[in-house]
């Protein structure tokens, strides 16, 4: 029975791994192929099945004038927009989450939980509902097709995530910690900065990770709110697809775009495995 269980466990883990890894493997091999090799069917082993070349990768950093696609600028645009928007969302989100967790708000029938839900409800709405208002809003303040405009929109999209995660996190941080800090002689700001915040680093990391992921992978708003001046990576990658699909550079750019998330995942995973996340407050 026990052996059967182990067998079953590994069986499903292997199936799952294949399911997850196969597309990456496909993209990785495809990125080194040329037109003929791609058309010759799905093959995986270089030098035996196909002759690898670096054309798909080189094209990514060549300027369009030399026949390249140059994803460097969109790449840094994406990095800049995602990081800035995530940072601001985390700062604002953490502050509002702390307020929502520790103080009582009441405006008519609207109370703390309703405000928290209001933030989450922003994410429940299908994004398409927001596209026209955002478009009109950005065009009214002249920020269409600009990095700043995208940052503003991403803050609106990412802050609910930060608030949601941090409210939950602060609710688990015992109120006595704040109270003790007050008794020990801090003012409420010091209590937050010196005591509550250092205790909340695991929560901040989780919230930050979610913000970065959601910001980085967003295609929809980046597509609608930019035209020619500014391009983000996901839009650029999709734009590669012309009459003849360049599978090799498409694959290469897809891999490059996933890379930062893999790095983030590794860092956070290390942090998680240290047990710092669960055992922060007891």
């Amino acid at each position, binding site marked *: 029975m026990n052996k059967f269980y182990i067998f079953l466990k590994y069986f499903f883990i292997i199936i799952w791994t294949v399911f997850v890894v196969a597309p990456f493997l496909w993209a990785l091999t495809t990125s080194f192929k040329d037109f003929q090799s791609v058309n010759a069917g799905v093959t995986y082993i270089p030098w035996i099945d196909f002759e690898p070349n670096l054309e798909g990768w080189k094209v990514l950093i060549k300027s369009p004038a030399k026949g390249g696609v140059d994803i460097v600028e969109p790449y840094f645009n994406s990095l800049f927009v995602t990081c800035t928007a995530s940072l601001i969302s985390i700062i604002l989100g953490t502050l509002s989450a702390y307020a929502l967790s520790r103080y009582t708000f009441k405006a008519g029938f609207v109370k703390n939980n309703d405000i928290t839900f209001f933030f989450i409800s922003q994410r429940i709405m299908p994004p398409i509902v927001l596209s026209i208002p955002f478009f009109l809003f950005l065009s009214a303040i002249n920020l269409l097709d600009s990095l700043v405009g995208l940052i503003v929109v991403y803050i609106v999209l990412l802050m609910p995530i930060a608030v949601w995660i941090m409210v939950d996190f602060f609710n688990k941080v*015992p109120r*006595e*910690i704040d*109270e*003790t*800090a*007050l*008794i*020990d*002689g*801090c*003012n409420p700001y*010091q209590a937050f900065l010196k*005591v509550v915040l*250092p*205790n909340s*680093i695991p929560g901040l990391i989780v919230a930050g990770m979610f913000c970065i992921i959601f910001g980085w992978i967003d295609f929809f708003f980046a597509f609608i709110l930019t035209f020619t001046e500014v391009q983000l990576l996901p839009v650029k990658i999709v734009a590669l697809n012309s009459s003849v699909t360049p599978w090799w550079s498409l694959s290469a750019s897809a891999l490059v775009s996933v890379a930062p998330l893999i790095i983030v995942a590794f860092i956070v995973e290390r942090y998680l495995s240290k047990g710092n996340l669960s*055992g*922060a*407050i*007891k």
Partner: protein
Amino acid sequence: MAKIDLSNISHSYNQNDPNPVYALNPFSMTWENGNRYAILGPSGCGKTTMLNIVSGLVRPSAGRILFDDKNVTDLITEDRNIAQVFQFPVIYNTMTVYENLAFPLKCRNFSKNKTDERVNSVAETLNLKSFLNSPARKLTADQKQLISLGRGLVREDVAAVLMDEPLTVIDPDLKFRLRRNLKEINEQYKTTLVYVTHDQNEAMTFADNIIVMSEGEVVQTGSPKELFERPNTTFVGYFIGSPAMNLFESEASSNNSVKINNILIKTQTNLSNLKTKNIKLGIRSEFIKIAQNQNENLVDVNVEKVEDLGNYKLITAKMGNFTIKSKVNRETEIPNQKLKLHIPAEKCCIYEDNKLI
């Protein structure tokens, strides 16, 4: 250090409701400088609310708090200079033990030398010296609670140290030692200590003044002896002492005697001004002994069970439909069935409407 006056304090957590529920009914009380107080009562009786009002975490709905005759009711916690220890260990996880203990001093800009000296002295008292440089989160639960306690004791100039059941998570052996340490600290530094607990033994051994609370009401304040021998209400009699006070429904039969099941019991209470017939006679089982050669205040009982509790024997017996408990020496031979017990008149307490007269 300060004298703390609570004057007409009351508190409700839903003041703005049309029918507010009071967690704390109006009361006044003075805590003298340098004494040890215990606030004793069952869970949910308002003990913690009272502490939080003193420390400023809760602003009372009504009444004033004075520290050394200075009104601090509107002062925020950080300006009150008070220390509070909570039931469960509250430590700053990201700091070392030393930083934890030094935090209250750092917040108040004490000099480095002074901080060092105080932290070391407190760590000495609480056996934390060898851990000073380890991260606080690595310690066990009771060591963490010692840190909380240490943070409360590290400042010498506090108005009072408030402790909210601080020893709940600490094992019995250490608990006993710590209680003694706290007493020593109190005697040495003359710090006012206020100790909240629901454990009467803890209150009795720790404090020289006990405040008994029930359902938001301060029922009685007094020394352990007073609370034990002359409980103000039947609640106190019931709550303090183990076993609880014997209480019998009775009726007055003359100026100083009552009848229980038609047996006349003499007391030393003047019963001439009774307003109701609802009176009870209360007596501690410690004072009820097997009759020797007395000729009054005797009751015949049927022994139901005798428990040997190590240092004494507890007799549970029936007197008509009343149950009576008596504590006797463990050497005492107890006859099987029928027994004559003696109820000493000077130890009888008479309660009218559950209040002592």
